[in-house]
């Protein structure tokens, strides 16, 4: 847009509210945009519509009572939030978890990661206008939900992990169903790649769109696939390994350009790596108890501690300040989407409104975990 005058004489901009009720902002997010025709001049994400006060609730609940809250913060990777919260307490209190429970936790966490990425895949393409891959992805996701339903009792908001282990043991049917699922998903890659990855329109909508490079990611504290697509190999499962991840072989997919297409490819490759992890964990699943020795109401020692896990969206952190009683003194949850969403204030100015959907979708946020 060439300017012939040094400063504008008449400024004809208008304000557009995208959300909070909008088909494409996943969760209740309000984007306050200042537009000049179709170009965005300023973007201000307004959040807080889903603030439920989880951190305040933690201060008046026992550690065990807070467990259901953990998975409701990011309902799409609920098991990983479960796992992270429980592991944070165990690390602080020095509680040992038997190996069978660790392997079961890892298998369920990776299944959860796959289901979260599949949902992201379906909804991202749907936002761009292609309605069909959504149903294909959900068809696969149903199988995961059924598998997890059998063992945890719920399909979306799980409270499966307990301090010291897991709640219920897995049986042979779980193992057979998971193996069947791995084979089925691997056979679907061709469909997904033919339908979406090689689609000319999709490539035009995502290549070069919303470039987040290493420097921007550092300034905003991005993590997860957003950071990995920028070329940084940072995955908490490798850098600060927890549970049995040190014993498992998997790669960390990265991108080069940091645009929406790279983020898309990174997530698809992560699904494949998660399948590998599940296979290995199923091979090595040992016999044994599923709950270690833990007091009925755990009492971590005084002090504070920070524990990080790799959720589906990035680096999830639990900061617990304990006063030695059965109730936490302060529980802070560092949600991955918190850092990732802020990038929009930098990314959106200068782009078209239609690109907003593409960029927002490719960052993959879940607003309730930002709001807590």
């Amino acid at each position, binding site marked *: 847009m060439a300017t012939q005058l040094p400063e504008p004489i008449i400024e004809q901009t208008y304000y557009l509210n995208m959300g909070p009720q909008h088909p494409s902002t996943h969760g209740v997010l309000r984007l306050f945009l200042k537009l000049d025709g179709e170009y965005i001049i300023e973007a201000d994400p307004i*959040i*807080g519509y889903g*603030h439920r*006060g989880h*951190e*305040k609730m933690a*201060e*008046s609940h026992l550690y065990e009572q807070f467990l259901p809250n953990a998975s409701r913060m990011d309902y799409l990777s609920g098991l990983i939030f479960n796992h992270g919260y429980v592991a944070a307490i165990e*690390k*602080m209190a020095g509680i040992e978890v038997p190996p069978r429970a660790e392997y079961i936790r890892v298998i369920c966490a990776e299944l959860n990661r796959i289901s979260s990425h599949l949902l992201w895949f379906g909804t991202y393409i749907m936002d761009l206008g292609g309605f069909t891959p959504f149903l294909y992805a959900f068809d696969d996701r149903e199988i995961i939900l059924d598998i997890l339903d059998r063992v945890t009792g719920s399909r979306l908001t799980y409270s499966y992990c307990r301090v010291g282990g897991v709640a219920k043991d897995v049986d042979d049917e779980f193992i057979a169903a998971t193996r069947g699922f791995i084979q089925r998903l691997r056979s679907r890659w061709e469909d997904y790649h033919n339908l979406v990855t090689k689609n000319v329109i999709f490539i035009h909508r995502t290549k070069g769109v919303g470039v987040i490079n290493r420097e921007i*990611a*550092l*300034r*905003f*504290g991005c993590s997860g696939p957003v950071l990995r697509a920028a070329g*940084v*190999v*940072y995955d908490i499962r490798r*850098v*600060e390994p927890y549970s049995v991840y040190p014993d498992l072989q998997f790669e960390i997919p990265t991108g080069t350009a940091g645009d929406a297409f790279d983020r898309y490819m990174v997530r698809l490759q992560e699904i494949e790596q998660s399948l590998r992890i599940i296979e290995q964990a199923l091979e090595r699943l040992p016999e044994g108890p599923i709950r270690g020795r833990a007091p009925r109401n755990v009492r971590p020692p*005084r*002090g*504070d*501690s*920070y*524990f*990080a896990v790799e959720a589906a969206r990035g*680096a999830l*952190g639990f*900061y617990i*300040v*304990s*006063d030695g*009683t059965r*109730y936490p*003194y*302060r529980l*802070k949850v*560092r949600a991955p989407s*918190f*850092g990732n969403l*802020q990038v929009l*204030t*930098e990314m959106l100015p200068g782009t078209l409104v239609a690109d907003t959907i593409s960029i927002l979708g490719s960052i993959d946020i879940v607003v309730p975990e930002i*709001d*807590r």
Partner: protein
Amino acid sequence: MSFDDFREELRKVVDPAAIRASDHGIKGYSLEVTARSDQVGRIARAARDTDLFLEAISGVDFTDCFQVVYFFNGFGAGSRVQVRVKVNKGESLPTISTVYDAALWHEREVFDLFGIAFDNHPNLRRLLLPEDADFHPLRKDFGRVHAVRSTDEIYGDPTA
């Protein structure tokens, strides 16, 4: 700079006794720094030069003061740094949003939930609560909490 240079830089900014190494496997951070509010800006700039990113800013409410906890982390293993700053009730902290854009939202959240103001923050308004709310929910005098403690009870010497 490298992480060791960062440690050296910290020693110049803060009293060396306020820097403690901790076991990353137990605590989750390898360096623990107790700083004053005027030292925060220099620490943040040193962290930026070491290629660390701002992971989280959290507030904690005690009987005697507020405590604001900063977490910086790098892309290598074992590089998380915790910086704890005690703030008296009613005082404010300088902002580090000029160094880290991520601080814009983290500081707004601390302001929203605790009422701790940040000087020179370009846009200090509420983040999670409605704009016209007149309370700060995570303070211990709001709603239901189990206990209110002083900093000594958590961080002090247990034998004292």
